[in-house]
């Protein structure tokens, strides 16, 4: 599973794209968030972060599947 990274999350994770190993057994947005926090504790210092699935904000309950475009969004600051 590949996760697109933006802003400060690229710096914390040290990559442009985060590769999540199959063994992590990620099935939902909630389990993805938990895995990210466990693997990169510094992400817990952010005020929050969101997951987008196919370019829309996803709730924690959203199930993840193959062929989705998944992105990790730190707090936005446009405008």
């Amino acid at each position, binding site marked *: 599973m590949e996760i697109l990274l933006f*802003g*400060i999350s690229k710096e914390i994770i040290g990559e442009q794209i985060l590769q999540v190993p199959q063994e992590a057994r990620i099935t939902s947005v909630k389990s993805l968030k938990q895995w990210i926090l466990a693997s990169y504790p510094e992400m817990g210092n952010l005020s929050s972060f969101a997951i987008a699935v196919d370019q829309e904000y996803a709730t924690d309950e959203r199930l993840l599947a193959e062929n989705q475009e998944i992105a990790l969004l730190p707090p*936005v*600051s*446009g405008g």
Partner: protein
Amino acid sequence: MKQIKLVSQINLPEVYSWLQHPEAGGIDLFIGSVRNHAHGKTVVQLKFEGYEPMAIRQMEEIAAEAMERWPIKKLLMVHVLGNKKVGDPVVVIGTATAHRNDAFEASRYLIDELKNRVPIWKKEYFTDNTVWVNAHP
């Protein structure tokens, strides 16, 4: 009619001329720029990064919400990406309506929602270090 885009530079005369509409009595333009200091420190430069396709989708959604709530003849949302100097315009919101109160209310909704939801990130370069805005509590 709406115009939504991400650009490297904002062209205001072009923005205004696009917003003109024969049935609009008022145009409200909101132009955001970046102040020269934050957290008591001096900002020397800025960079905006966006999740471009999703940013466009979110702006389209916000625009559709506004067009449902207010009778808008023309609606424009333009945000810059890339490096900017302090004072450069970084976002422009424009609405043309028959009655001016609709333009003020719609523009305010559009900029508030853009700042809440559109996946764009601002990095401020201070003289001593750099900060991704909003990242920390």
